[in-house]
């Protein structure tokens, strides 16, 4: 029997028969592209002209002084076009869709970042586009929905299950099994059936590749620790993959601790007792599930981390001990975010801020010779509604109330006219 896409027992491709041929084709096209020396070149050119790769690494002098330990550097994935590392994966898959001559893309989205990135790619490449998004996420990430629609995508709110990311993935699969002839499913993270974990990691590895080169070039030194937040695991795999072979570099993945690991309201698969190995959404990994294998509700302040599964490659790296995993709570995230904004003028996404929390906890204990590298996977602008809520900013609240009042008045006018 084939043993496809396993990482020490994690991964695989648990697919409905109807999709096997589609995955065979995808795998073939992906492997061909990987083997084609021109392909990575094409990908890099696209990313350097459409997005702004290489993204810079920013030295955070004030945070460094504040914590008094190693020098803190930030990899600036927030500067990507559409505001997050998601663009890397999406544009790469876009090139594959062209190779497969497909004309339509679908995607799931949680934070909305992947949806916006996919809709953007579809606009640029001229594909039709449908985005599945849990109803709960549609609510908390409305601005992204607005932009997806402007970009020409159809956004379908998913009202099944827990109405968040995992349910959107299921719906996307249901679409795909119907329309695979014309349609590619642009999975947004290093999860799902093989070859997605490998493929998404391949495209995201540009983050780690650049980071390593940039640090060696400007400082002549490797980082002591690299921090990344872990939702599905794509930005983490992206930056980690640059340093996997550097045994001196400690890699730290930070999951959503939500309201605390004891609360049950979190999304921590790799460092909580609430998770165990299972098979769902086409692959084997740690899932937040009950004894029967039913998936649990998850919670995070960051929609993009609010997911039951995790990259099988990260499960493997957890098992092998190569990556250490930690969790950051919602409250810690808001604090780390505020501090970063004030001290450095950087606005990390709520997702990214999880990585900052753990780096900040450990920074004071590192030596001044150490280099601490944090992946800022995205920018926080998109989170304004969540963050303004977290701050309970009265001026913002007044603004929203006024806006609503105006809309209602306008509507009444139209209605009466």
């Amino acid at each position: 029997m084939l043993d496809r896409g396993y990482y020490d027992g994690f991964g695989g491709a648990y697919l409905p028969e109807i999709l096997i041929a589609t995955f065979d084709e995808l795998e073939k096209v992906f492997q061909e592209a990987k083997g084609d020396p021109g392909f990575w070149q094409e990908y890099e050119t696209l990313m350097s002209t459409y997005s702004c790769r290489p993204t810079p690494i920013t030295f955070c002098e004030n945070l460094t002084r504040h914590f008094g330990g190693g020098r803190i550097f930030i990899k600036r994935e927030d500067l990507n076009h559409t505001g997050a590392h998601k663009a890397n994966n999406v544009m790469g898959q876009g090139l594959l869709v062209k190779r497969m001559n497909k004309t339509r893309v679908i995607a799931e989205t949680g934070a909305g970042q992947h949806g916006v990135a996919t809709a953007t790619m579809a606009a640029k490449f001229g594909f039709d586009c449908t985005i599945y998004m849990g109803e709960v996420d549609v609510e908390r990430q409305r601005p992204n929905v607005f932009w997806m629609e402007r970009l020409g995508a159809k956004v379908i709110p998913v009202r099944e299950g827990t109405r968040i990311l995992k349910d959107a993935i299921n719906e996307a699969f249901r679409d795909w099994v119907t329309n695979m002839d014309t349609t590619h499913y642009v999975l947004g993270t290093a999860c799902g059936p093989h070859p997605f974990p490998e493929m998404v990691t391949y495209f995201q590895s540009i983050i780690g590749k650049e980071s390593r080169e940039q640090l060696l070039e400007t400082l002549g030194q490797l980082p002591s620790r690299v921090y990344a937040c872990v939702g599905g695991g794509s930005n983490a795999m992206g930056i980690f993959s640059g340093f996997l072979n550097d045994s001196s570099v400690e890699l730290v993945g930070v999951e959503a601790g939500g309201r605390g690991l004891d609360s049950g309201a979190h999304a921590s698969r790799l460092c909580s007792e609430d998770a165990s190995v299972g098979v769902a959404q086409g692959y084997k990994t740690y899932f937040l599930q009950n004894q029967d294998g039913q998936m649990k509700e998850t919670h995070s302040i960051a929609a993009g981390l609010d997911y039951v599964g995790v990259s099988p490659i990260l499960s493997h790296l957890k098992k092998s001990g190569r990556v250490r995993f930690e969790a950051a709570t919602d409250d810690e995230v808001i604090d780390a975010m505020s501090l970063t904004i004030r001290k450095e003028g950087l606005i990390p996404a709520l997702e990214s801020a999880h990585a900052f929390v753990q780096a900040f906890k450990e920074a004071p204990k590192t030596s001044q010779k150490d280099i601490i590298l944090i992946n800022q996977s995205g920018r926080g602008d998109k989170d304004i509604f969540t963050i303004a809520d977290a701050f309970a900013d009265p001026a913002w609240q007044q603004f929203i109330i006024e806006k609503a009042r105006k809309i209602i008045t306008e509507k009444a006018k139209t209605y009466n006219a």
Partner: protein
Amino acid sequence: MLEQYLKSRLKEKKILLMTHIVMGYPNFKDGHRIVESMVEAGVDLMELQIPFSEPIADGPVILRANQSALSKGTTVKRCLEFAKDMANSFPIPFLIMTYYNILYKYGVEKFVATMAENNIQGAIVPDLPPEEGKAYLDAMAAHNRSPIFIFSPTTPTKRMEYIASFAKGFIYCVARKGVTGAETTFSEDIHSYLERCRQATNLPLALGFGVKDKSDIDFLTGKVDIAVIGTQTIRLVEDESIESVGPFIRGLR
């Protein structure tokens, strides 16, 4: 075992009927009544679905039935007891239908052993292609249960043969792309697909996804051995009543 049963039945009937319920939906008591009326109406075998939180291959009707059953506290243990109860109460073969995680978390060997103890003939696990199924296949063989595999219109002929080499009992041919419950327009197009299926295996062929009334059954008669009625009876119970199920089944053949 299952294969023999089906082949002998096929000597008496031109086409067999397989129906489906989601265990725990609307509840176990009604489920029992539905099974009873199906058996009385002449159904030849049945799938009993253990609900799963991520039923990726199912369309909205069965999906919601899964969710409803779970939200009422349906457990795997209770489902297995119910299945045992059905298998011991009614004289037709029963199959478990569910997603792989249910088996995996229960323990694949233990799950299959329980199936055997409970007199369940086989299982359909739509997200478990044979490539991923070694533990499952070993256990099914050890306990002499039938692993039902799936052919789809997108399955190449070579792969059909590959799949058939692991299958027992019958082959479940899905009629079209998509998930359960959507509309299928049966037409002569299906002919060459079924031709390919026939050539890949000597097992009886079941056809499912979108079979919903007598005209579909008439169309399929002579083309396949088993017609699968899935979503349609759930809809019937939801829109009308449990009492409608018997007459509906009887009207199909």
